[in-house]
């Protein structure tokens, strides 16, 4: 075992620093992830790699030796795991840790290791760490073999598109370096790997603690003829190199326009190579031109390659801005607005099918709606299970649609143009990661049918401006009562109206929906679509729904032309509504007979700036209705 005495720096550093620097300037960069639980010796392995690459400073080493004696689990020997700890303490403090990144280097490569701690949050953490990895080291304890978690880790790595998998059979010292044990694990893993589509992997018998087959071939395993872990890490092909063979793609990040004579398009090359004179197509517009220059601070390039940040100038003055993709003219990516994707849910709040989220893919940000999942995947058994929604750490397959066409590629063809995140529009939290499978054909084949009689023409026939009077408030607040009065008053003025009532809609159009958060979102989405059709027909639509979530009210507002959505907050305090309890529902909810009742065990999010607020403790229903009619006619 390598002790501190052998801890010496590379001789070349002292002898010829210039030669040393020159050698280290030509290193490449490999990012990898280590998967395994605490018991598999993951921290020990990472600590060992840091130690063996001689990247540990003397003061850290001294602290390590002292800590090893004090709290280490390895007696008088160095406990390498202590080099990478610190996470346990943070977990106690309640700090969210998704991934810790460690760095080490050899003469040939620099390495960035994504280290994902713990069992909880494991899916979310692993997916984050795996998203940028070229390679995964899957640790298996030789005494335990392939476990459920081995399968889960492998599945997630494969899902995130990691092409290189190392099966590190660890703790070989504890099974007497038994070849049969190693072979049994290798074969068991091979059978599983094939079943989920992993076509090749590299099995290595190691001991992170002793140092077998980490940087040097171990004399304990004469029967093993393959590479050491370090040899694999140093020689495996890097994704960025493989990406050069792909067709050219540059998602435009920023338009560089310092003066009238220069207009450049900046971005990181997400695939292929680019040269002056190359024919390119700008998506989604589809316009074609040629590349004039590949500009960098260090001078123009003859060739820009995948993984480089460059600025292109184009031969023609074509429209191009952030979010567009400049691509090989003869082999462009696709454009669509409906997709099937795998979605990994990362937030405590469950996914709400139908709700609008921001979707960020490359440099494009659009509004997206996710439909109810087709199925959820059990990450331990790979079984497909039915699901209405996705909860934290759940993985499912669902269709989604966007409000604008997206330039994309299937994730397996290009991570940068196929991987996306979903962002909650109110909390701004990143709630999910997704990987596009393909565009749905109906997005390409269902077109908008333009009708000759326009919505303006229909409204003109009725001599009115269409609008949606959207009532929101607690159950029993007085929404239906006031809405009815408003409709009566408008009818007397010869206005064409239609009242959509929450209870009535649930008897027909929405009779398949219940009262879970997910169903409430879908309920409102459908009502919003119906209201929109009715305003297209020229009507003044009055809706009376609790509609408890701001996000959905906002969604309906976005569906309609500016100014046509009038939000009316029927403001009745909970205590007052409960006291009135016209339908006897509060009593039922309080006694537990009624679940998910707004205000009791389901939240109500009051409007922040509604167009109209009716305080029912101050105004009678009739006064409230008058105020609403007045507002409507004044606009």
């Amino acid at each position, binding site marked *: 075992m390598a002790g501190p005495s052998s801890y010496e720096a590379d001789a070349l550093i002292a002898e010829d*620093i210039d030669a040393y620097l020159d050698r*280290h300037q030509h290193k490449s960069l490999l990012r990898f992830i280590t998967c395994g639980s605490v018991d598999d010796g993951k921290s020990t392995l990472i600590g060992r790699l840091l130690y063996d690459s001689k990247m*540990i400073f003397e003061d850290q080493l001294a602290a390590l030796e002292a800590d090893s004696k004090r709290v280490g689990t390895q007696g008088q020997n160095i406990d390498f795991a202590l080099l990478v700890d610190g996470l346990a303490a943070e977990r106690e403090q309640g700090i969210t840790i998704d991934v810790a*990144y460690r760095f080490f280097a050899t003469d040939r490569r620099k390495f960035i290791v994504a280290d994902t701690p713990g069992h909880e949050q494991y899916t979310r953490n692993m997916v984050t760490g795996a998203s940028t990895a070229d390679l995964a080291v899957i640790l298996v304890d030789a005494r335990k073999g392939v476990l459920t978690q081995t399968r889960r880790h492998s599945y997630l790595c494969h899902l995130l598109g990691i092409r290189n998998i190392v099966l590190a059979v660890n703790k070989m010292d504890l099974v007497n370096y038994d070849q049969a044990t190693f072979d049994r694990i290798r074969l068991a893993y091979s059978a599983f790997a094939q079943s989920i589509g992993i076509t090749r992997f590299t099995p290595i018998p190691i001991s992170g603690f002793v140092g077998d087959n980490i940087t040097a071939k171990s004399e304990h395993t004469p029967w093993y003829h393959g590479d050491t872990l370090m040899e694999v890490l140093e020689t495996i092909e890097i994704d960025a190199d493989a990406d050069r063979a792909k067709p050219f793609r540059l998602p435009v990040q920023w338009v560089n326009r310092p003066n009238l004579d220069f207009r450049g398009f900046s971005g*990181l090359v997400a695939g292929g190579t680019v040269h002056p004179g190359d024919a390119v197509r700008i998506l989604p517009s589809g316009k074609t031109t040629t590349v004039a220059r590949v*500009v960098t601070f260090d001078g123009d390039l003859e060739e820009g390659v995948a993984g480089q940040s460059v600025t292109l100038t184009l031969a023609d003055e074509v429209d191009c801005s952030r979010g567009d993709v400049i691509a090989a003219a003869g082999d462009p990516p696709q454009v669509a607005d409906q997709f099937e994707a795998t979605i990994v849910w990362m937030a405590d709040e469950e996914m709400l099918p139908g709700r609008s989220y921001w979707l960020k893919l490359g440099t494009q940000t659009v509004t997206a709606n996710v439909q109810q999942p087709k199925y959820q995947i059990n990450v331990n058994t790979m079984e497909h299970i039915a699901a209405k929604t996705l909860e934290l750490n759940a993985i499912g397959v669902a269709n989604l649609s966007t409000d604008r066409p997206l330039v994309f590629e299937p994730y397996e063809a290009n991570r940068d143009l196929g991987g996306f995140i979903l962002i909650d529009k109110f909390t701004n*939290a990143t709630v999910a990661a997704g990987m596009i499978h393909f565009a749905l054909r109906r997005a390409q084949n269902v077109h908008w049918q333009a009708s000759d009689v326009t919505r303006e023409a229909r409204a003109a026939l009725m001599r009115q401006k269409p609008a949606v009077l959207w009532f929101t408030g607690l159950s029993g607040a007085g929404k239906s009562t006031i809405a009815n009065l408003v409709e009566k008053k408008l009818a007397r003025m010869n206005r064409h109206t239609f009242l959509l009532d929450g209870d009535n809609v649930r008897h027909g159009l929405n009779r398949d929906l219940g009262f879970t958060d997910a169903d409430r979102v879908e309920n409102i989405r459908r009502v919003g679509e119906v209201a929109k059709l009715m305003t297209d027909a020229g009507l003044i639509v009055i809706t009376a729904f609790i509609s408890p979530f701001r996000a959905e009210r906002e969604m309906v507002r976005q569906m309609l032309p500016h100014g046509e959505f009038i939000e009316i907050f029927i403001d009745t305090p909970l205590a007052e509504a409960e006291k009135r309890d016209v339908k006897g529902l509060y009593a039922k909810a309080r006694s537990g007979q009624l679940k998910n009742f707004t205000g009791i065990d389901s939240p109500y999010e009051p409007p922040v700036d509604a167009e109209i607020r009716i305080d029912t403790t101050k105004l009678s229903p009739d006064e409230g209705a008058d105020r609403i009619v007045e507002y409507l006619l004044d606009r």
Partner: protein
Amino acid sequence: MTASLTHLQRLEAESIHILREVVAETEKPVMLYSIGKDSAVMLHLARKAFYPAPPPFPLLHVDTTWKFKAMYELRDRAARDAGMELLVYQNPEAKERGINPFDHGSLHTDMWKTEGLKQALDLYGFDAAFGGARRDEEKSRAKERIFSFRSANHRWDPKNQRPELWRLYNAKKAKGESIRVFPISNWTELDIWQYIHLENIEIVPLYFAAPRPTVERDGLILMVDDDRFRLKPGETPVERSIRFRTLGCYPLTGAVESAAKTLPEVIQEMLLTTTSERQGRAIDHDQAASMEKKKQEGYF
């Protein structure tokens, strides 16, 4: 096919991508410039990211009035060379109360840097600030995000940070909230030095060894930069060949004895006589997990 991009080219491309992403997605970014070697690299990367335009944001130096003279000289020149506006902010309260590192210990850092930074960001209304922190600096930084969110009163909420996948950074935020962005998160100390060497980036001469007047105090070698330095009874400045591995406020930053006069020699010395970088800074020794605490309070 041509050779792989080198690790430095990959790191550079990643940092440039981050810089551009912030400029595209935030309203009023600023780069915090501390005049150290990490700041020098970050500034250089910004010049590359937006070339031929100058970086479309100002540099902000949250000044303590206690930097080394040589640092002030380089600061003004570096901003001018980059074609960028330089904003210098000094906390007026700290100035009025005469807060200094000799009498006030960690209050010096709190008032000038932590408070000063918050005041400056509020004064100008910046919603994103680039900082030169790296993940390899210490264990607790290894899990730091590249985009780190701060509430309207600049608190860092460790329970509410966002996962960062692929090259996708979520820069959405509510009014009043701001982001600290660390474009050189994935660089190591050696990467920084190699890049400075390769790109010929100007850094403060204090990083190179020269004979300088010094005193030894509490195990640190302190440089007597000018008459701002208060000698204790019995202390007489002694000339030593020293350099600095890290540059903060000068009485808080310890020097190392060294003969390394060129960059390769500095790198050589760093690789051979290895104590980790932050050891020279008195601030970290204040208390266990002090960086974590300072971060929550808004110190960068």
